[in-house]
């Protein structure tokens, strides 16, 4: 599993530029899917056919990650940039980014006058080793993702884009283990979640599922002086009840809890103050979809060391398989 996770989290794929992710995921799912397609926005969709007695289910995990895009190249060859998704200035100094063509850049900021203050994004720049605008190997409009090697230390797994490559890993794991399910399950590896759940929106429009389940990370409250939140790392997948964009379908939440209890899978209930997931886009697509989310607890979200627990990952796969293998009486 760690081998798959490492491949996924180290790959390049800022929102809107997920080609390499599609190429990477496709062979992992091809042997297990009945049909595979890619839609207009670039969502990779794998259908696992049911026996005809069930519902149409969409499972969404997003392939894209936060990143940056060049807005200006200075005479000296430094790059100014803007954010793709929620990039925090606090995570930038001395960090590295990589462009689609492999060029790597160092991120730093304008002169620091007050050590207690963090510069806004537009006072940071990227140094790709160029000496002038002319010899700079990237230009305005080019997108870059962060660079950080995967770290597995005991049960703790850290990487730049656990959000939401770990959701992709859970989806792949569930697809591989799922056999003889009653439902037609569409595993959607979605695009452009970090800029507003745009890929899931069009995929849900096209698929018109009965039930939608997103797989994504959620915040935890178990770090020093953390904002209080009743989700802890290692205590099981979090069944989302509510976040700032969605109140999960109550019947689906009840069913998720029941399946976890029956299979003795540890779980937590999640109420997230800020943020949302592809489940929101699914819920309000077409005439409406019964939507919910299995969240993988994750520390340091939107930094380059997003950290999850291996047991939570395994239990998320188990919970999803339990849900998909049985009737969805909601």
């Amino acid at each position, binding site marked *: 599993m760690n081998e798959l996770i490492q491949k996924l989290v180290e790959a390049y794929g800022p*929102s*809107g*530029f997920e080609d390499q992710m599609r190429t990477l995921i496709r062979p992992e799912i091809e042997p297990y899917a009945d049909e*595979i*397609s*890619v*839609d*207009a*926005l*670039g*969502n990779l969709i794998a259908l696992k056919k049911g026996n005809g007695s069930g519902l149409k289910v969409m499972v969404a995990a997003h392939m894209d990650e936060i990143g940056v*895009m*060049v*807005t*200006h*190249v*200075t*005479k000296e060859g430094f790059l*100014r940039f*803007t954010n*793709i998704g929620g990039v925090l200035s606090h995570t930038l100094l001395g960090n590295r980014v990589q462009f689609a063509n492999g060029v790597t850049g160092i991120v730093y900021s304008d002169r620091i006058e007050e050590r207690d203050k963090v510069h806004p994004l537009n006072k940071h720049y990227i140094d790709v080793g160029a000496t002038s605008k002319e010899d700079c190997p990237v*230009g*305005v*409009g080019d*997108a870059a993702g962060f660079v950080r090697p995967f770290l597995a230390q005991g049960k703790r797994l850290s990487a730049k884009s656990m959000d939401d490559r770990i959701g992709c890993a859970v989806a792949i794991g569930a697809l591989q283990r799922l056999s003889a399910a009653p439902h037609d399950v569409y595993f959607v590896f979605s695009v*452009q979640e970090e*800029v*507003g759940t*745009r*890929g899931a*929106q*069009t*995929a849900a*429009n*096209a698929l018109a599922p009965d039930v939608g389940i997103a797989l994504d990370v959620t915040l935890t409250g178990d770090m020093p002086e953390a904002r209080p939140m009743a989700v802890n790392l290692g205590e099981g997948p979090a069944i989302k009840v509510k976040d700032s964009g969605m109140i999960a379908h109550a019947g689906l939440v009840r069913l998720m809890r029941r399946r976890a209890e029956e299979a003795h899978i540890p779980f937590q209930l999640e109420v997230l103050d800020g943020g949302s997931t592809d489940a929101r886009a699914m819920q309000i697509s077409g005439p409406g979809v019964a939507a919910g989310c299995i969240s993988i607890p994750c520390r340091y979200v939107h930094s380059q060391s997003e950290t999850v627990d291996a047991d939570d990952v395994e239990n998320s796969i188990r919970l999803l398989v339990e849900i998909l293998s049985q009737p969805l009486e909601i």
Partner: protein
Amino acid sequence: MNELLQQLTEAVGVSSGEHAVRLLIRDLIADHVDEWWVDAMGNLLARKQGTGAVDLRVLVDAHMDEVGLMITEIDSSGMLKFSGVGGFDNRALLGKVVQVGPQKVTGVIGAKPIHLLDGSERDTVVKMEAMRIDIGAKDKEAAQGKVNVGDLAAFVTPYEELGETAVGKAFDNRAGCAALIELLRAEPYPFDLYAAFTVQEEVGLRGAQVAAYAVQPDAALVLECTPAYDLPNENDVSPNVALGLGPSIYVMDGVTIQDPRLVGHITRTADTHGIPYQIRQPGGGGTNTAVIQRAHGGVPSATIAVPGRYAHTPALMIHLDDYANAVKLAEAALRGLTPEIIKRNHH
């Protein structure tokens, strides 16, 4: 003198009141399309039949509406209170002439004159709530005979060419409308071209949302006028886009990441044809592309825009070469569009 730009920018069509612009464009395109129709929101849609050589259904969008004002109250002295229709910088409003309501009653946006301002007032921006449109009525009754609450008001700026540039109101987005009209007047394309002259973009991309839903295209191109901010500056910061450097191509704005394959197709087309272009600085803002891209199962979409200085004020300025090159680039990109460009590799 570019008569098309003159006619279109001098016509009045504040969001939701696009009627006059719609009629004008209908007459300008009717002989060059195979059918046209107006939908429930007021979008003017047209189909120009292609040669059938390429199996695609392509939508080209340009919004007809312009920013303006709406009368919210007539006060006892006959002055008109108003609110903005679309986004405004209040500093751009005072002292400007407007035309109010269906009768195009002339008014001026007034406030206390500089002679009477005290020191602190000189340093603050007057809020829109404190401004009034003065139509010269002596009291409420006199004003009520000429205008009504709910009437729209538009700026009044005659079109004028200053050598290579042109000044006028509503280049955002009559420049896009003019370009789309020129595209329709050209020879048939290899595929059926659907044109959407859309309403209510300035208040939230509303017309294009239903137009794209109805047309269900395979690909879409949005023609726009994007704000240029290229005044001289001392620091080494790039202009958003600059006048005279060619049409601007969007990569990412506040609400859309454009389809990279279409962006690549457009820039390659420009290079091949020797058409200048500039990449619009990624950042804020947004166009109809956002809602077209996300209609139904998704639509590969791109945006080409004519740079325009002083957007959302009574007087914008564009470079006529940028406009001409935008038309040229859009036409060449459309003629070179094939299913292969937007097809997904399934292996």
